[in-house]
């Protein structure tokens, strides 16, 4: 008897439930490409936005819909990109690894401060107060907004309060580029190794008073560069990276070291004519 009641009651319930679910199944099916989930899983979940999409999921959608290629994701490993590409049966869309580069060499050992800034310790804040008190208006303030902005621990301030970007860790997400109030950082392919390390628009030897490694707009690098690789614009040399030639010729005669070659092993190499960078009697305190 008990068994019958039980079977009846529970059987009835399950029948109702089953019917309900069947109806639900028929009426409300959501169609979403299951590959999106899979691709999203294959992405690094950094949600950094370097791919140009607001996050990994939207990028995954774009990948699946064929609107983007896996190579756009700079955070993923080569293998990871390859996996996604072969899963979706598309090209990797190989993109050369990009890194952020700083266009200033004016650490506290070589660049002078005109005034001492007091207040919130951020470049953004300091740059609003008379440009930050650095004698060179264009120079790095060394308060590390770019460091804070980096989610990948790829930027650190060195002993002279200049940011250094680790080529390994940098994912080219562009956060530091946005963060810098002086627009000193930009994204470049790693293979671009000839680099103008200054943004000062002034010309003449007087500006060496402000900063020992400033570009005086003497123009020698432009003269020496093969194939008109470098032209002078607004008192600064400009490298035409669209026809980039890997050469160290232009740095040879630079008197200040404002143009450098970024050697993968040795780091920043300036020409033999550039004077040694430690200035005697330079103030060593931080530009606060």
């Amino acid at each position: 008897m008990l068994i019958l009641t039980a079977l009846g009651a529970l059987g009835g319930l399950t029948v109702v439930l089953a019917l309900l679910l069947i109806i639900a199944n028929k009426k409300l099916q959501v169609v979403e490409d299951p590959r999106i989930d899979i691709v999203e899983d294959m992405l690094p979940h950094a949600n950094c936005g370097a791919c140009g999409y607001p996050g990994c999921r939207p990028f995954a959608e774009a990948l699946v819909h064929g609107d983007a290629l896996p190579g756009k994701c700079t955070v993923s490993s080569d293998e990871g990109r390859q996996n996604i590409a072969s899963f979706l049966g598309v090209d990797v869309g190989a993109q050369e690894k990009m890194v952020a580069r700083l266009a200033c060499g004016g650490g506290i050992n070589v660049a002078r401060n005109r005034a001492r800034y007091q207040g919130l310790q951020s470049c953004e804040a300091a740059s609003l107060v008379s440009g930050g008190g650095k004698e060179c208006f264009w120079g790095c303030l060394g308060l590390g907004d770019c460091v804070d902005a980096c989610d990948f621990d790829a930027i650190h301030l060195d002993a002279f309060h200049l940011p250094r970007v680790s080529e390994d860790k940098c994912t080219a997400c562009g956060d530091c580029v946005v963060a810098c109030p002086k627009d000193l950082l930009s994204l470049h392919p790693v293979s671009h190794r000839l680099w103008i390390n200054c943004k000062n628009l002034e010309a003449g030897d007087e500006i060496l008073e402000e900063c020992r490694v400033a570009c005086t707009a003497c123009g020698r690098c432009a003269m020496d560069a093969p194939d008109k690789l470098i032209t002078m614009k607004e008192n600064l040399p400009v490298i035409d990276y669209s026809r980039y030639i890997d050469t160290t010729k232009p740095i040879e005669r630079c008197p200040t070291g404002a143009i450098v070659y970024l050697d993968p092993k040795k780091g920043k190499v300036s020409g033999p004519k550039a004077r040694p960078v430690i200035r005697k009697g330079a103030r060593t305190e931080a530009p606060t």
Partner: protein
Amino acid sequence: MLFDLLKKNPTFRHGIHPPQFKEDTRDKPIRHFPFAPVMIIPLAQHIGKPSVPVVSEGQEVTRGQLLARADGFVSVPMHAPASGVIKKIGRVPSISGKMVPGIFLEPFPGSSQEVLEGKPVKVETSTPEEIINAIQNAGIVGLGGAAFPTHVKLKIPEGKHADTLIINGAECEPYLTTDHRVMLEQAPDIIQGVRYLLKATGATRAIIGIESNKPDAAVNLRNHLPPDLPLSVQVVEVKYPQGAEKMLITAILDREVPSGGLPIDVHTVVVNVATTAEIGRLLPHGRGIQERVITITGPGIKKKGNYWIPIGTPLRYILEQAGAEEDIDRVFMGGPMMGTAVSSLDIPITKGTSGIVAFREEEARKKDVKIYPCIHCGACVDACPLFLNPSKLGILAKFKDYHTMASDYNLMDCFECGSCTYVCPSHIPLVQYFRISKLVLRNEKAKAPHV
């Protein structure tokens, strides 16, 4: 006593009472200042497009001669502050720390104070347009500090009208006494200026608002009031930032300028007294502005006082002439509440400079105190004249949540008066946070269409 309480001077709600420090200079008559060996004249001394030089290097110019013409409507011309030679047209140092386009002028030794005159503009015979053009040609900008071209403000937009002209004589900044002295010494010019302004704007009445700590100025102006002019003097409470135009309009007219709006939205035009006096002084002679009244004061100055200083005089020269102490540590252009600290003494004063305040180290150190976290004491909330919540804004800014600040807490309304920072017991640099936040948001907005 009860009676006194009842007829309290009108004012706005909230605000602060910083010490005034005006005693040192308010009784010092305005005196003329010698010409510096070299004058530095930036081409953008106003908000808007920089002016365009019409002189060339090596050219000799007379005081008051046009140096650069206005470039469009939101721009004003520059006039020579002294007779001399144009040394160079290039980049000059500026208060922003940046080198900006400008002119170096070397006055002739012993050059006279005589000023070149132009075509007079009479109130009675000119149309409002003519007056507005004349104001632009005179190179007049707001002398209250913002340096906004005055003629732009006077040009009432289509579909709006002005019924009241408020002359801002509040001068609520501590230390500064320029407007005070102007009201005492240049009452006829002010009256004349009001006539021009009334005609230009079409307003039917004008009110001069003066803080109650300048009773002599109020009396002086009242004595000069001509019977034929719908002009009156209104004394308002001493309170910072009474001089902000929104606060003055609220105090005098009990109107509120809508958020994101301008005084003209409540049918009002606000002009600073010194600006008014300058209009009244220059237009009848067709001159251009070449000097302005500046208070030089502060604990770091020995010869405190009010001076007519030619525009373009370098700061270093002014300080030397005014006998600044050797150990000055901070120098501000403008008052201590709203003014800008200068990073170099090689920059010139401009049309917008209403005062120079120099602090020695002791005063300066008072600001350099330990910052605590916000303790929600509410002092800032009780101080903000715009009824914002600086505490919340500050916390949001610290965590870089700029969008919430703008969307939920009216960040963009903040006019950076600094009242909140002044009262904060935790010494949080609130205004600095807000400046950054606003800048970031504006930059974002500027970039938005490209993304």
